[in-house]
């Protein structure tokens, strides 16, 4: 009899574990997850002791107007750069609205996009980071998970002309852009002066300069080829010089038809291949990651570094030696011989931003918070003060006079631009196209795939 009791107890224990394991935990899903990856911020720590998720909302609402907004962000570093800017605004908002608490869950970009998809299937957090580019937004908008915003509300928010376009579908607005990104060649001014090198005006000059730099024993351009997308942005930059203002039409036409045989695309790809062949990039560029590549430049081993304007914060980064940090300058892609692009036609776009979930239980509050973030003296101003690059709004009112030379230069580049390319080529198609081009571009640049095969392969990924 005793054994029978023990057996029954054991079985019951097993069943209990099973049931606990299978139990639905829908309500607390966004707040649970990997403790290491999830950062939760609650007002003054008061909320931390409360149960997470819907139960907290319910309890709050019953006690009079308490609201919890869940923010899902792609900025896990809350102490530096853009993540710090975001957190500062959140803290200010919670201080100004004591009844609102904002819970942040932050993951880095790739993990973010994966979890975003999981959320899209089973209830999204209230405010989310998004990218206003077809490779990300098309599928998301098709699934109908984002709330429509009223464009009229943002007339006074001084958004740069055209910056909202990527966040629209059928003329309806679904998100707001955070940054303006410009593709740049960062260079080490001191190294240039010491060696008598000059900023190139044409692509041929650039090739000659790279040969000189190589002869001097340095890497000409540090390129993050391991990730694929920086090289696709580089190709975009060349294509803008080759095709000029026709860039967007040529690319959207190619994506729509799956035919990338346009002479401009072919020529731009060939220029990329020739440059890589001539040793413009470091040895092994096609397998090196972001950090390693950036270090080549910030350690003084490479004379130039090809990346977007978000890396302007290098000029304020205390970890970089002052003799390099203070000498970082930038120029844009030089003109290509016979190309239609001018020196002021630049590769720039408005990529990252925010949106509100369509099914949010606190949609109005979430939109109110979104609008607060985008008040011109918030994201734009704090972003500028923290050197995180250019926002998608007019920032001229927030110049402090203490800007780094690099910041001023980038500001001028944007001010003097005669045309802006819009979305880089890899983000112009569906995400299958993005995955394909970011992998295939490694093959074509290192010579293992021919230009024809490359163009055919990326075309096939659009179909």
């Amino acid at each position, binding site marked *: 009899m005793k*054994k*029978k009791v023990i*057996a029954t107890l054991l*079985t019951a224990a*097993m*069943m209990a*574990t*099973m049931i606990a394991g*299978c139990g639905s935990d829908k309500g607390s899903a966004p707040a649970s997850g990997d403790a290491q990856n999830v950062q939760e911020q609650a007002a003054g720590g008061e909320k931390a002791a409360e149960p997470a998720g819907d139960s907290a909302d319910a309890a709050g609402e019953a006690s009079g107007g308490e609201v919890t907004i869940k923010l899902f962000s792609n900025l896990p570093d809350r102490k530096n750069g853009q993540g710090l800017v975001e957190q500062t605004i959140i803290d200010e908002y919670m201080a100004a609205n004591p009844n609102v608490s904002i819970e942040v869950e932050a993951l880095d970009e*790739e993990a973010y*996009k*994966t979890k975003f*998809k999981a959320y*899209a*299937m089973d209830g999204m957090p209230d405010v989310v980071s998004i990218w206003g580019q077809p490779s990300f937004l098309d*599928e*998301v908008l*098709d*699934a*109908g*998970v984002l709330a429509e915003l009223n464009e009229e509300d943002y007339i006074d928010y001084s958004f740069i002309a055209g910056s909202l376009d990527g966040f629209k579908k059928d003329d309806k607005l679904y998100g707001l852009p955070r940054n303006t990104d410009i593709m740049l060649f960062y260079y080490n001014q001191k190294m240039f002066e010491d060696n008598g090198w000059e900023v190139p005006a044409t692509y041929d000059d650039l090739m000659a300069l790279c040969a000189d730099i190589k002869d001097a024993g340095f*890497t000409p351009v540090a390129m993050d*080829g*391991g990730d*694929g997308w920086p090289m696709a942005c580089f190709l975009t930059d060349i294509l803008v010089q080759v095709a000029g203002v026709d860039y967007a039409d040529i690319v959207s036409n190619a994506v729509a038809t799956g035919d990338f045989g346009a002479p401009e695309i072919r020529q731009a790809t060939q220029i990329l291949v020739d440059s890589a062949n001539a040793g413009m990039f*470091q*040895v*092994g560029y*096609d*397998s*090196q*990651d972001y950090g*390693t590549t950036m270090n*080549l430049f910030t350690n003084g*081993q490479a004379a130039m570094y090809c990346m977007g304007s978000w890396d302007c914060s290098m000029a304020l980064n205390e970890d970089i030696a002052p003799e390099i940090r203070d000498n970082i300058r930038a120029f844009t892609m030089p003109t290509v011989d016979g190309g239609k692009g001018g020196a002021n036609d630049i590769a720039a776009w408005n990529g990252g931003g925010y949106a509100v979930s369509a099914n949010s239980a606190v949609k109005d509050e979430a939109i109110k918070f979104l609008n607060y973030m985008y008040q011109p003296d918030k994201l734009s101003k704090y972003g500028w003060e923290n050197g995180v690059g250019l926002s998608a709004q007019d920032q001229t009112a927030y110049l402090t006079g203490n800007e780094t030379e690099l910041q001023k230069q980038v500001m001028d580049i944007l001010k003097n631009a005669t045309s802006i390319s819009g979305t880089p080529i890899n983000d112009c198609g*569906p*995400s*299958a196209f*993005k*995955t*394909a081009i970011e*992998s*295939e571009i*490694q*093959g074509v640049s*290192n010579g*293992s*795939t021919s230009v024809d095969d490359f163009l055919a392969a990326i075309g096939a990924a659009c179909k």
Partner: protein
Amino acid sequence: MKKLYSNKPVIFSLILPGILVFLFAVLAPICLSIYYGFTDYSGMGEAHLVGFENYTNLFHDSAFGRSLRNSLLLAIGFICIQHPIAIIVAAVLDKLQGKAEGIFRCIYFIPNVISVAVIAYLWKFIYNPDFGLLNNILRAFGYTEKVNWLSQQNAIWSVLIVLIWHGFGWGMLIYYTGIKNIDPVLYEAASIDGANWWTTFFRITLPLMKPVIQINVTMAIISALKQMETVYLLTNGGPNNSTQFAANYLYQQAFKAFKYGYGNAIGVIFIVICILVTVALNTIFKDKQDA
């Protein structure tokens, strides 16, 4: 006690948790995978049935072909390089006796204790053309050219070396345990008969290790097929899919390219291959045992 174990409700309640786990954590996901493999599901929105389209595309997908070829290369590398060395090292360790045995056993097992993320970054630095250990060694010998260890042509071999090195400790430990289980009397008898080390190894150790070798080979092939995390962190399948493995490719297609249906089709083919390989291995080993 006997009565208890023949009581059907008790038996049923004891195996029920196991069956439920199998049903919901293994069988149900496989069935869902098979279903999604026939759809164009992107992971969001609605799924539409597309018949065998994903599978026909898969057979024309060169990256998938390359990932299977790489898995095969890895399996061969495990069986022909890692395991022979592991057996010999295990046999030598067994002969060392005393303190040295424990120390070397620990040293050889260290790579398995270190996290995969650390291993991947460690080797990333070792292979770096600018400041990597390998190129610095070459430079010390007067070879100044920067070798690109992770180039399109070299990368797969560099990745194989890491994987073989990393998995070595497990193989060795299992062989070592197998050797420890061999009756020492056999070795004593052999030495009385005048057998040297090699003869003992080939005539006593190896034949008696057969079941251990079988288990190890099966595990090696399965781990070659399942390879994902080291590759994901070391090269992420690049440059241009030259170091792609099936599991990593599945992840990329399903979660980065938003081709969830296609990813599931890869998963289904993957399961079929794993089952076929396991059945084939069992048949081969069974034949040998019968003979």
